[in-house]
């Protein structure tokens, strides 16, 4: 291994706020060598993004930075804006999380890739264009010549992220900083992008600083790991060592919280009783959305059929655009189906008048994805949880109060939380309140649409545990919608895999996730990285 090409020493970053200075990064030191991938891991608020932004001088003006960030002998923090600009894009480049907003929608791909070349190298426009085409080919984009004249909106998310990487690599930087490069992408696309980054490291010897919260991505790509917790490095070392024998307590907790595909305990599936109607039957469900004028209809859900037995957890998996959320919304009739039957405990809700629908809905609870918008910001936690009780006209005021207390207790929230407002709670706490509200009327069916995808792993683990435990205690049936196979693995009795509006495969969890029959399911499983570098390597090689 050679000299460190980028080295952070004693880096301290503070942000001035109305309440005083908040220290985001408290004196961290680490470096990266050529041809090495260093993963900076941490949960939200750990300071990992602030660290990466400091290297490019992209922190907002309210930030105060101390320490040094040395790139090939020069302290980037002490360079003038002009010198720094010469370095940015040339010696050090960045790949951002959101490929849509990181590209200018008004310019062609060719123009954007050539831009950095024209700024940093003395090239003619024609040469820059030729080089841009080479770069697109390098990052594995087919028909690069045609792509040059396309606009960002004509490309898929995965292609856009490849373009971002091509732009970052255009001047062959010594260091590439990738800030959550795959978080916004589907797993199959994520696997391709990770392969691409690995190839860049091997072929070009680029040093990569990978900022991520996903332990699977770390296990897949990183050589060394730096674990950040509240602005401090709690652990640093070789990726295999850190995963195999984490030395710090926080790392151990973090790793334990990550759901591991294929390692969930076996589940006892109850035999179905013949005298009970299924909790939910979806038969030949079709949902069409009206397209834009002239564009025709868009079929979001195409003849989907499945059943959920009482007390059963059905995992509905699919990538973005697979129609899984639409199916969930149809099940509770937030979305009107175009055709097909949806039976909730034997009642078809598809064409039910509002009054009857209200009766059926009392037996259904729903947990939504976004903790920020699932609770009314102007109601206290107690009021939020009590709302279904008030609407259901159940019991006296005192009885409702008691029920709210009981519900909050069952989702492990304190009494004191009852009078708090949602903005005073963390994301995990808000999802617990959501869960308590969904369970208020003792539903027999719970629909959970990606309830943990906006949460940090450790919080996700706690919420999933709670959900599983309550499901066993209260015995409600559950339609659990997620993009994350490992989460589904942990929770579901049976699994339905959807793709582009159709059901690809369904069966018990072990059938679908251990011995998949369909190609797509197999590809999905192979793409999901597991949080274990040794196992992940074997999986990658067998892919």
């Amino acid at each position, binding site marked *: 291994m050679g000299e460190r090409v980028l080295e952070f020493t004693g880096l301290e970053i503070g942000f001035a706020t109305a309440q005083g200075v908040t220290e985001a990064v408290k004196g961290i030191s680490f470096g990266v060598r050529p041809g090495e991938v260093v993963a900076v891991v941490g949960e939200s608020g750990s300071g990992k993004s602030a660290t990466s932004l400091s290297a490019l001088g992209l922190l907002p003006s309210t930030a105060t930075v101390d320490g040094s960030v040395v790139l090939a002998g020069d302290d980037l923090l002490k360079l003038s804006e002009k010198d720094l600009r010469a370095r940015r894009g040339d010696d050090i480049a960045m790949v951002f999380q959101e490929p849509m907003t990181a590209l200018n929608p008004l310019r062609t791909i060719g123009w954007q890739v050539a831009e950095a070349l024209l700024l940093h190298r003395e090239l003619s426009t024609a040469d820059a264009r030729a080089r841009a085409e080479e770069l697109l080919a390098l990052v594995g984009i087919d028909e690069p010549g045609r792509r040059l004249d396309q606009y960002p909106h004509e490309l898929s998310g995965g292609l856009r992220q490849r373009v971002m990487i091509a732009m970052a690599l255009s001047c062959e930087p010594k260091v590439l900083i990738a800030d959550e490069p795959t978080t916004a992408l589907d797993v199959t696309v994520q696997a391709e992008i990770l392969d691409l980054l690995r190839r860049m490291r091997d072929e070009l010897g680029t040093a990569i600083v990978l900022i991520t919260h996903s332990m699977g991505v770390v296990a897949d790509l990183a050589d060394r790991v730096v674990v950040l917790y509240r602005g401090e490095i709690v652990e640093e070392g070789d990726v295999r060592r850190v995963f195999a024998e984490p030395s710090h307590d926080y790392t151990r*907790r973090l790793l334990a919280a990550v759901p591991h595909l294929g390692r969930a305990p076996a589940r006892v599936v109850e035999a179905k009783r013949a005298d009970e109607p299924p909790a939910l039957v979806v038969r030949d469900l079709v949902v069409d959305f009206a397209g834009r004028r002239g564009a025709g209809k868009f079929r979001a859900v195409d003849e989907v059929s499945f059943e959920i037995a009482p007390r059963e957890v059905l995992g509905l998996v699919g990538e973005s655009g697979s129609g899984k959320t639409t199916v969930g919304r149809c099940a509770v009739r937030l979305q009107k189906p175009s055709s097909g039957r949806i039976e909730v405990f034997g009642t078809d809700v598809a064409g039910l008048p509002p009054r009857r629908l209200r009766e059926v809905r009392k037996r259904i609870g*729903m947990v939504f994805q976004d903790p920020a918008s699932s609770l*009314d910001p*102007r109601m206290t936690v107690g009021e939020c949880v009590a709302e279904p009780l008030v*609407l259901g006209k159940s019991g006296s005021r005192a009885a409702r109060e008691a029920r709210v207390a009981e519900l909050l207790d069952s989702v492990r929230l304190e009494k004191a939380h009852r009078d708090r407002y949602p*903005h005073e709670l*963390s994301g995990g706490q808000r999802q617990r309140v959501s869960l308590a509200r969904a369970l208020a009327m003792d539903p027999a069916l719970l629909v959970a649409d990606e309830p943990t995808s906006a949460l940090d792993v450790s919080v996700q683990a706690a919420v999933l*545990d709670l959900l599983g435990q309550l499901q066993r205690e209260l015995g409600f049936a559950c339609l659990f919608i997620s993009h994350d196979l490992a989460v589904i693995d942990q929770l579901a009795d049976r699994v339905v895999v959807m793709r582009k509006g159709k059901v690809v495969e369904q069966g018990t969890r072990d059938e679908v996730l251990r011995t998949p029959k369909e190609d797509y399911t197999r590809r999905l499983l192979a793409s999901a990285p597991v949080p274990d570098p040794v196992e992940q390597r074997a999986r990658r090689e067998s892919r």
Partner: protein
Amino acid sequence: MKEEALPEPDALSEQDTARAEGPGRRRLRLFLRNRLAKTGLGMLVVLVAFCFLGPLLHRTDQVHTALADAHLPPGSPGHPLGTDDVGFDLLGRLMSGGQTSLTIGLAAGLLATVIGTLWGAVAGYAGGWVDAVLMRIVDAGIAIPALFLLLVAGTMVTPSTGMLIVVIGCVSWLVPARLMRAESLALRSRSYVEAMRLSGGTGLRAIGKHIVPNAIGTVIVNATFQVADAVLLVAYVSFLGLGVPPPAADWGGMLSQGLSYTYDGYWWLVFPPGILIIATVCAFNFVGDGLRDAFDVRLKER
């Protein structure tokens, strides 16, 4: 099992949240940080005190004319701001006129806000053809100049304070209706509104309990501008001679009467009511600006 191993991240963030201030306090702090808003609030307090408490200190007869004392210049004994063309004390008249102007302005502004808010909330929440019909009515209303409607209404009914409130309120609810519709459209797809519908709630509850309270910031800010507009509208109609009939007075009417004597050099009949109208409108606008900052959660604190 994991639940016990992992209490820390959540538990720690709880400590953070304990320090967080409530929404009300934060708003008050943001409002009071805006110097212009503080000035506006101060001006309003002074104006209201002047109009409603002033007459207690400076007693004048605003019913019987005193033609012998007409057109006295400012500084005359007993008449610090002089008198008008029929001998009413100008300072006293500004006070009683201000009562009319402020009352009509506030009440009409609030009426417009209430109508507009409900109209827009229903349109945005219902969507579909209800929305289309309700909003086309608003479009049609906006296409006709408010002043024209006021003049037509003014010729058909006898102007009185109550009448002016109703008429001005009914012509100026259109803009708040549009604003509220946009808010309502965005809020109705929030998960908490959907969750409420799932537990069997009706549209009425969604609007009353979730949509209007969450748009209250926009509504309150707009209400202040609405009041300022209404004060101006009162001035307009009175200026055109369709205001409250004598001996009652309001600032717009005083301005209008004063203007007929500008060539005689009676400046004290023009400037004081004009300045008070401008001050009132500015004060409400300043307060509105401050409130907008206070309610805008996206506003970054620097």
